[in-house]
């Protein structure tokens, strides 16, 4: 993992507009400020977008190359990479937050257990729905058979 990404994850948070710009760049691959504004999904002034992209470049999240009088920006890291480092950094901060190092870990385990239990509840609901669906189908099938016999 690159140093710049770790530094970003530990020191700074992304604002909503910065996240929107990054999402657009991940979907497009690379773009100039004018290209980002072209499809009309971003309702901000040209200078605001330019400043935001410049800030993301200075945070080490974008690369840029000169193209005429403007810059073409490319994301330096993939979405998955950024998520992974952010999650790792959050866990590291959590574990280092207290002298009693076992306490934050127990919070993490508790959160994971709750998440697992919720996931299992959702899966249980899916299974029950499928069972009802199958019963309904069998019921209709047997009704048709009875009618046929009559």
């Amino acid at each position, binding site marked *: 993992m690159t140093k710049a990404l770790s530094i970003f994850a530990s020191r700074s948070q992304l604002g909503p507009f910065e996240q929107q710009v990054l999402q657009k760049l991940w979907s497009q691959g690379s773009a100039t400020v004018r290209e980002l504004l072209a499809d009309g999904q971003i309702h901000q002034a040209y200078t605001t977008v330019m400043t935001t992209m410049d800030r993301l470049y200075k945070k080490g999240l974008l690369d840029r190359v000169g193209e005429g009088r403007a810059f073409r920006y490319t994301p330096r890291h993939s979405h998955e990479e950024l998520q992974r480092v952010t999650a790792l950094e959050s866990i590291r901060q959590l574990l280092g937050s207290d002298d009693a190092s076992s306490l934050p870990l127990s919070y993490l385990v508790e959160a994971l257990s709750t998440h697992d239990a919720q*996931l*299992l509840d959702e899966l*249980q609901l899916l*299974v029950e729905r499928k*069972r009802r669906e*199958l019963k309904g189908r069998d019921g209709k099938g047997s009704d048709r058979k009875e009618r046929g016999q009559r």
Partner: protein
Amino acid sequence: MFALRGIAVSLTFFVLLYCLLSALVAVAWRSLRWLRVTEQSLAALLFAFRVLPLAASVVITFAFVVPSFQLLEPRSMNIDEGMGAVPFALGVCALSLIACGCFRVFTAQSRTCRVVARWLEGARPLKVDAAAQTYAQTVTFPSRCEAPPLTLVGIRRPRVLVSESTVALLSQDELRVALKHELAHMRSRDNLKKLVLRFCPFPGMAGLESAWSQAAELAADDAAVSRLDDAVDLAAALVKLSRLVPVEAAPLCTVGFVTGSISARVERLLSWDETDKARAPRIRTWYVVPSVAALLLCVFATYGPALSLTHEVTEWLVR
């Protein structure tokens, strides 16, 4: 000295070939994931790919290196000619690799025996349906928090262990299909395969081993299920038993029912389609027979020149 030199040269060739093939496998195995075959075939292919470096290195060493040294190496050597630093060092590496493999197998097996003996205290055969063959090799054990709810143990005499709480929690259909899943693991000798994987250590193989493990689980799911009702029962059993999984990790030479990605398995079972299953091509064992026969024919036809070539290579290695 001649025998020692022969052993060192053979071990050198073995370790170099093993490392080369293992590195190739560690890079190339991902291409197997794109194959559109049944999970059973995919699991077999992944396992074959994982053990290929060890099997090929052993076969080539014994079929070519040892005979080429015995037949072509002059026995009247100068007394001054030693073993050589490179063959000696690589020979030690090969012996360390073999010792490491043996140690890993021994520790895994002894830990498994110890833990399973603890689980089996007070266990008795399961008597749910005396006529059903499904339960012939199945024993229940008193529920303990550290034991998995349903698992396959043993290599020579494999048995399915099912906890009392599992029997109480699952309906008869769910229990039947869950046991069929474990018996499918028994038929494909997955515990023995796990032990074999322990014997051939190499860095960078974790991804391949994990993919094999997941494919083996899905293959056992496929073997246990023959219609949609079974699939839903198996999914229900999986969700129920996921709540009973202990915190303590199970020993290596066991195959637990609740392993791999539970949500992926449940979703796959709920979207069960028999026609899809029938459509996926299965790779039969006899498919490899023509290739092996052709290979053996080539080896017999060119054995003499191949031995000379091997001898030249070993000479180059020793120099």
